């Protein structure tokens, strides 16, 4: 490797007709000027975060002058034509879908990550990483298509009747909706979508535990599961939780796949088989046609703002934990 690079460098220096090397002060000036310009460009991400938050906040403002924030967030009636903007059905719908999705995804994902980091052969691990990348690359609309073809009929025909029949005494398992479109379908699709992400982050976190610790535990006679339970998990708990939260924020903002399977009826859900209408779906479905109704535009951008703020809070908290654990290196 080194052999190839050396001749290349010498060649460029000896090249004929090359202008003489610039003087040190001028190179230094160049370096400093470039530094200043680059610093300006580098501030872009910070500016962008502020700009998006402030921009959406400003557009949210007109409706806040008419209704109080609390009125909007806790209102359960959504009739923009009549000037009623209650966000609660959408906020609760968002959380229902996210919690069902994360609840379904987390146990198998953590077990899979543990399997990969503690038990699996090197060859299994080697194929798993590209596979996870591949799966993370599948567009959300494709997950949505899959949900419509497979999950919705499955929920409508088998899962919902089964739960209603045998677990109907628990309120959240009562099904009044025979179509299959609803929270559970959305949750299942989300669970599969965020799985590669949660597995990848959890796996990264698990690899930070030193082999020495594991070997010490095994050497005193612990089984592998005992080692995992008493050494690996306690060491990585904050990181695992942060990874799960980060995965859940992905679910929170997911639009297309959820929109396609969740039913989109503006009501406060009471059961996992009810339809829901999460915030991203609300924005996506209505944003084009909002112009004629007063304050509709402010209400929808308010929905985007609320979504953004919820996500920022979870995101910053979990990112800080992960940056600390993984030495700022975790993607």
């Amino acid at each position: 490797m080194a052999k190839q690079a050396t001749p290349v460098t010498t060649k460029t220096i000896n090249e004929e007709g090359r202008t003489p090397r610039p003087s040190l002060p001028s190179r230094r000036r160049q370096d400093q000027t470039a530094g200043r310009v680059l610093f300006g460009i580098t501030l872009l991400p910070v500016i962008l975060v502020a700009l998006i938050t402030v921009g959406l906040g400003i557009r949210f403002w007109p409706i806040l002058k008419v209704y109080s924030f609390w009125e909007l967030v806790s209102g359960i009636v959504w009739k923009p034509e009549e000037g009623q903007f209650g966000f609660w059905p959408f906020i609760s719908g968002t959380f229902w879908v996210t919690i069902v999705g994360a609840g379904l995804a987390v146990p198998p994902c953590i077990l899979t990550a543990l399997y990969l980091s503690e038990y699996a052969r090197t060859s299994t691990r080697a194929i798993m990483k590209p596979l996870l990348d591949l799966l993370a690359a599948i567009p959300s609309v494709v997950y949505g298509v899959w949900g419509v073809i497979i999950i919705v009929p499955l929920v409508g025909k088998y899962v919902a009747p089964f739960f209603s029949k045998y677990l109907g005494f628990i309120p959240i398992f009562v099904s009044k909706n025979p179509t299959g479109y609803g929270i559970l379908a959305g949750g299942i699709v989300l669970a599969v979508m965020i799985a590669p992400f949660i597995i990848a982050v959890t796996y990264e976190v698990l690899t930070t535990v030193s082999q020495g610790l594991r070997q010490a535990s095994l050497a005193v006679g612990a089984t592998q599961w005992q080692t995992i339970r008493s050494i690996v998990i306690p060491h990585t708990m904050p990181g695992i939780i942060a990874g799960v939260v980060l995965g859940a924020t992905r679910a929170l903002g997911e639009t297309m796949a959820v929109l396609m399977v969740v039913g989109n009826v503006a009501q406060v859900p009471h059961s996992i088989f009810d339809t829901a209408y999460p915030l991203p779906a609300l924005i996506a479905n209505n944003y084009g046609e909002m112009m004629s109704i007063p304050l509709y535009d402010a209400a929808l951008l308010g929905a985007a703002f609320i979504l953004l703020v919820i996500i920022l809070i979870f995101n910053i908290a979990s990112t800080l934990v992960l940056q600390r654990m993984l030495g700022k290196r975790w993607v």
Partner: protein
Amino acid sequence: MKKHWHRRHIVEAIVKALMMFSFAIVAGSLGLILWTVISRGLPALTWSMITQTPKGGFYLGKEGGILNAIIGSLYLAGGGTLIALIFSLPIALYLETYLGDSGWGHYIRLALDVLWGIPSIVYGAFGFTVMLALGLRASLLGGIITLALLELPIMTRAMDEVIRRMPVDLEQAALALGSTRLEVAARVVTRQMLPGIVTAILLAFGRGIGDAAAVLFTAGFTDRIPTSLMQPAASLPLAVFFQLGMPYPEVQKRAYASALILTIIVLAISLGSRWIASRLSKYVLK
């Protein structure tokens, strides 16, 4: 020697079985997705789907194809990726060669992670708000800019990760020989991270081409192939979405075929980036 089965060994066996079961569920459901898309999409996939634009009555099940969406998506994601690259390469280089692990470096990486977590629908809403303020209508340009915002953090973080895995000695050797930081960035780091740059570009391109929510209001949708930046542009994810929403089985079948085309493009990009990266890694000093 006969193994004595203690309680802990039984627990071990149960837990291991559970883990393998989870692994099977995860791998299985992901396999199921690919199988579903292929088995439904392949029968409906025809040559005219990818060579023709929609003709009259296309959304009622008549003649035509989705060439408009394929080209539109390539334009949108291509433009977005180009703009994102113009900003993210300097940011990634500056983070490494000038800032390192200093306070600013920390805040900027945090901002990038935060941006990366912002959902695409929020980018879409923000992009549309900005377009309204500037008096722009739904157009190729609007879609490209919104996708560029969406792709910027993905690309920059991916590059940053690669640069950070680069051996420090190399950079220090260049500095010790009298190079300025700018020269290190431009001549040593860029060359060393070439495979990483390509991977990051293709990763961001893949995200851009698959994203529907960000282009929903900003790029619009049209049956024609755009010829200028100010015209609206169709995109593949939206083509899938709109066709699936039609009540005609003929059109829904085409939605499956469109989803298959999109999946093939995205997977080809993902595999292609691995291949290119491995080809380019000969320029990298280990």
